[in-house]
């Protein structure tokens, strides 16, 4: 069986109100991307979008989402992402924009990137911490994700439980 190649796009959903992030759901993201593709590329774009596109992962804390597109036409669909200006949530329009941080061929490479990326974010957070307790927490989180990374480099095949490692640690 020949594998159907896909491209995974890691995007950061940037909202002015961080609190709204918590409400993010897969279907809202999917709908927002679908609408943007239709506006930018019309019926043709929509037709290609309907083939094998999916939202694979949503992190409601960091706002990181992972989109899956077919490799054959991911460039076309990707080009519509900058045109997303808002997400509809409970009949409410939430202004936001998508910032694509990584494009990978497998979920695994995306995961690795995401861990590295999250760690960087944590390091950047460190100077902004106000109390010692907060600092400790961040340090612990940094440590935990590097450990995670080590563990994951060892086991090769499994990437199903990818999303429960970094849900908690970069939740600050």
């Amino acid at each position: 069986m020949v594998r159907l190649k896909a491209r995974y796009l890691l995007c950061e959903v940037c909202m002015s109100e961080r609190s709204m992030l918590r409400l993010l759901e897969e279907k809202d993201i999917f709908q927002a991307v679908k609408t943007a593709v239709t506006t930018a590329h019309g019926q043709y774009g929509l037709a290609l979008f309907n083939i094998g596109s999916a939202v694979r992962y949503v992190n409601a804390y960091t706002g990181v989402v992972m989109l899956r597109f077919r490799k054959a036409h991911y460039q076309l669909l990707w080009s519509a992402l900058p045109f997303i200006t808002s997400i509809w949530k409970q009949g409410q329009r939430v202004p936001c924009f998508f910032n694509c941080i990584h494009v990978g061929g497998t979920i695994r490479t995306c995961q690795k990137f995401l861990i590295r990326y999250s760690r960087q974010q944590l390091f950047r957070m460190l100077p902004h911490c106000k109390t010692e307790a907060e600092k400790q927490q961040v340090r612990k989180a940094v440590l935990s994700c590097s450990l995670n990374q080590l563990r994951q480099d060892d086991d090769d095949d499994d990437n199903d439980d990818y999303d429960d490692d970094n849900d908690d640690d970069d939740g600050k």
Partner: protein
Amino acid sequence: MSPELEQCPRSLLVCEKGNFKNEKSRHESQALKHSFNCRISLLIPECGRLPVMLEKVLSNFSSYFHVQDFPVSTFLEEKWLDAVKKGGFYALSSKTRIDEDNVVAVLPSGQLILSLDKDTYEQLGLEGRPSQYSHRKTVRHIVTVDLKSLVLGTKKYQRVLLCLKERVPLKTDFLFTAAGGAVSLLDLLSKQLYEECRPALHCRTLQDLLCPSLIPSDLKGESGSVTPTQFLEWLGAVSLSISCDNQATSFLSTYACPEPQSSVSQALLCTVTGLISPQDVCKLLTEIRRYLDEPKLTSWVSLTVHGCADSPVSWGSAEHGFHKGGENFYNFVCFQNQDYWLHMATGAKDACPP
């Protein structure tokens, strides 16, 4: 956007520059090689009426003949073989499309070219070569029979006759023309029901035309004058009466005459439509050179010759095909100092012009 949708079938444009007086100049042979021409158009700037000399040549173009349901095997009859051997004989099947049907042509070199679809080729039993422009499976074959070397009664002759008469009695509509007076088509066609057609001449005077300024020595348009593509586009715009003065901001069209340009008070555009033999084109070319020998207001004259889209050959015996357009044409720009430019253009399924 998706890169695969941005590709187009290839096209070729060959640009040449030379002088008519140069002994090695190939202008005549290039024109003679382009066997099947369906239209010529002549653009003479600063001219209101067709000059008498040119008109004489244009109206003396040889007639062409249209015959319905002409059996291809007739070419193997003795008198037809003799006619073909004399040279200057052109035949092309009409109402047949090169990408769909069987197309038959006789070149002045005496070659009978059959461009056949799969079924016909397999039934016919004459050896041919697969078309160069096939896809996945070969569905078109080109059979070439040299009529000049065919001698009546030989084994080879019998075989060709058998194939064309018995196995596949090919019959199509044909267009004939002959040049040089060696062949009398009227005699040949006496047994057939034919229709004699005269090439149709149309003249149009254009007023206040914006013309790009041409510099004979600058073919490629490197020193700021027009490039060959721009020039050909402009010629097309003139012959299709497309307006050349548009603003870059206008909604409908932004086409403008290429710079540097000058205004010409009037220009004459003549078109002749019909099956035109290359010999007639050469005669016209000679006459244009003579016309430019005398001092004139204009510094150049352009002659465009369009080839038939459904001919099996373009130049010489190079295979011609039809993908989405079967364009094959050439254009002479003759200058006063006997310099010339020659642009030869072909579409996706064509060999490079000579």
